[in-house]
């Protein structure tokens, strides 16, 4: 593994993606954009998982589930989440005619 890209680079990249996703979730008001930001966070975690799987040594008693399998499972979950999310956003859009999360404010307090 001597000529590989160092592990740290992957971790920095993942941390940067995570930060971008988090900022997106907090600042974007468009529901679709929020959904995209969530996906970015999930993918940052995926990069971490795969990088740790590639570079780390599995601990004793760690079981058969390596990070790369978990990453595939996460991709599946993310797809399910997007399907549900888009459905919910569409439902809201049909009622309010906007996709702005700040406008959905029937309830508060």
């Amino acid at each position: 593994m001597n000529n590989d890209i160092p592990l740290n680079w992957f971790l920095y990249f993942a941390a940067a993606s995570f930060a971008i996703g988090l900022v997106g979730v907090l600042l974007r008001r468009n529901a679709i954009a929020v959904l995209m930001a969530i996906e970015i966070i999930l993918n940052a975690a995926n990069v971490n998982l795969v990088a740790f799987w590639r570079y780390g040594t599995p601990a004793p008693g760690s079981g058969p589930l390596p990070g790369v399998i978990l990453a595939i499972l996460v991709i599946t979950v993310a797809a399910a989440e997007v399907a549900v999310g888009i459905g919910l956003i569409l439902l809201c859009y049909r009622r309010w005619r906007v996709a702005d999360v700040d406008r959905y404010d029937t309830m508060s307090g």
Partner: protein
Amino acid sequence: MPPTAPPLDFRDFWRIAPAATLALWGLVVVLTDLGLARRLGLEARRRVVGRLALAGVGLALISAVALFWLDSLAAVDPERLRQLLGASLGDYFARSGEVIFLGALASGVSVDILNFLYLILLALVIQLATSYRFTDDWGECLALLIWATVGMMFLSAAEELATLFLSLEMMTICLYLLTAFEKSRRRSVEAGLKYFIYGSVSSALFLYGLSLVYGLAGTTRFDAIERILAGTSTTAPGLVGNLAGASALLLMLVGFGFKIAAVPFHQWAPDAYEGAPAPVAAWIVTGSKIASIVALMKVFLHAARPWSFPSNDMMGPGWVGIIAVVSAVTMTYGNLAALVQTNFKRMLAYSSIAHGGYILVGLAAAAVSINGPAAAGALLYYLVIYAFSNLGAFAVAAWLVRDRSADEIDDLNGMGAERPLLALCLAFLMLSLIGVPPFGGFFGKLYVFMEALNQGPSQTRIILVWLVALGLLNSAISAFYYVRVLKAMYFRPRSGAGLKPAKSAIATPVLLSTLVVVVFGLFPQPLVDLMKSAAGPMLVSSSADAPISAPPAVSTAPGAAAR
């Protein structure tokens, strides 16, 4: 590095029989609804699909009870098991309490007890869901309720972070959809989207924390994580100077904080509970909360135990200090915000946030306790009583929505004269939520707080004593808003349309919840003992095959990521 996976033991499938039955039965419900029941009229269809779903829950309940019986038999008389089930299966069941599916799930009596609890609650929620017409898609609605329960069962049985994440998602994705199920009302749709956004952001944060833990420990299994974290942090106990560990811990705490609606992360809860149809809100507030708290207990009390607190200072870097602060803020904020609510379900939402605070006191106590399982058992007892009290209260909310199409506290006016029996039940439930003896809620709080006061070293005790004092003060505050419900029922004249008879769909959950709260309030000891015995296996490493000999070969990650 090709991993050599050990072969899967197919007998493991017997152990997940309740969850597997439910998962399949969800399909049966959907297909029957699609194929047969659509030809019936709306009323008949609701009845048929509701009965069908209940039948499935009954089947799962039978298998859960059978497993419980086998597991308790394994403790006393393994020979009998071999006679009953044959050599192969008998031997398998005699090794009760081991991890199954290559270490993904726990098994044993504690899992069976929780499964039983979920199934009873689910049966009541399904009853409640068929009590009034909030949707026309009964098949989908009940199937989603059932599948969410499958997620809860796996979540509280998970012994490994990947399984935990998957089952968490399985549970919450079903609940997002259910929250938005009353498509004709704006509030329901809005609640669904809000719940979805908060929930999926929190899962994403949790997953990032999980990936860091995986990097630090090189494994996702709780017992291995605990061993490795304990091995690396001998020089600097806790999290001093461990940036990656600290961020992993914080992110996982934030993720769980959202799920159990602890205070900085609670914004979704009141909206989701108010907007969701009452049966769904009941299931979020009971089932999802129990499952999340059990998972929180297992992750933090078991896997992340080496990170709990530095040995000399409970409030030092580590998760116990954070939990202590969060619990103080949560119970205070939840109770103060509940005081000004006029909507019954919203008030219950804030009350459930406050109860989350009391539960976190118990968690902090269990972490510093010399007798962790006892403290965790008190916590489980609290959760059972909390779940039934809230389920009954939400059943009354469903009743209000059905007959008065509103769920304000004022809609309860005059219920005491109109429906004396059920009003009395609701009064008992409210008193139990305040924590008035002799109801279950009192003993729940008593045991949790007593375990918190029951600690050894004086330094940690001071903080816990403060937390308990704050908890008692908060219980007093909470009396004000629960008593408003009693006042509305008994001292105000009826306003609005009269309540029609509750019928069994609503009366059963209310009566049964009250029965549980009263019976386990008068005789708390059996349930407390049961819960203590259930909590024991949750907090220790339960795998028999874990190799301990080799020093943990920590991956290169801790050093690299800590820089």
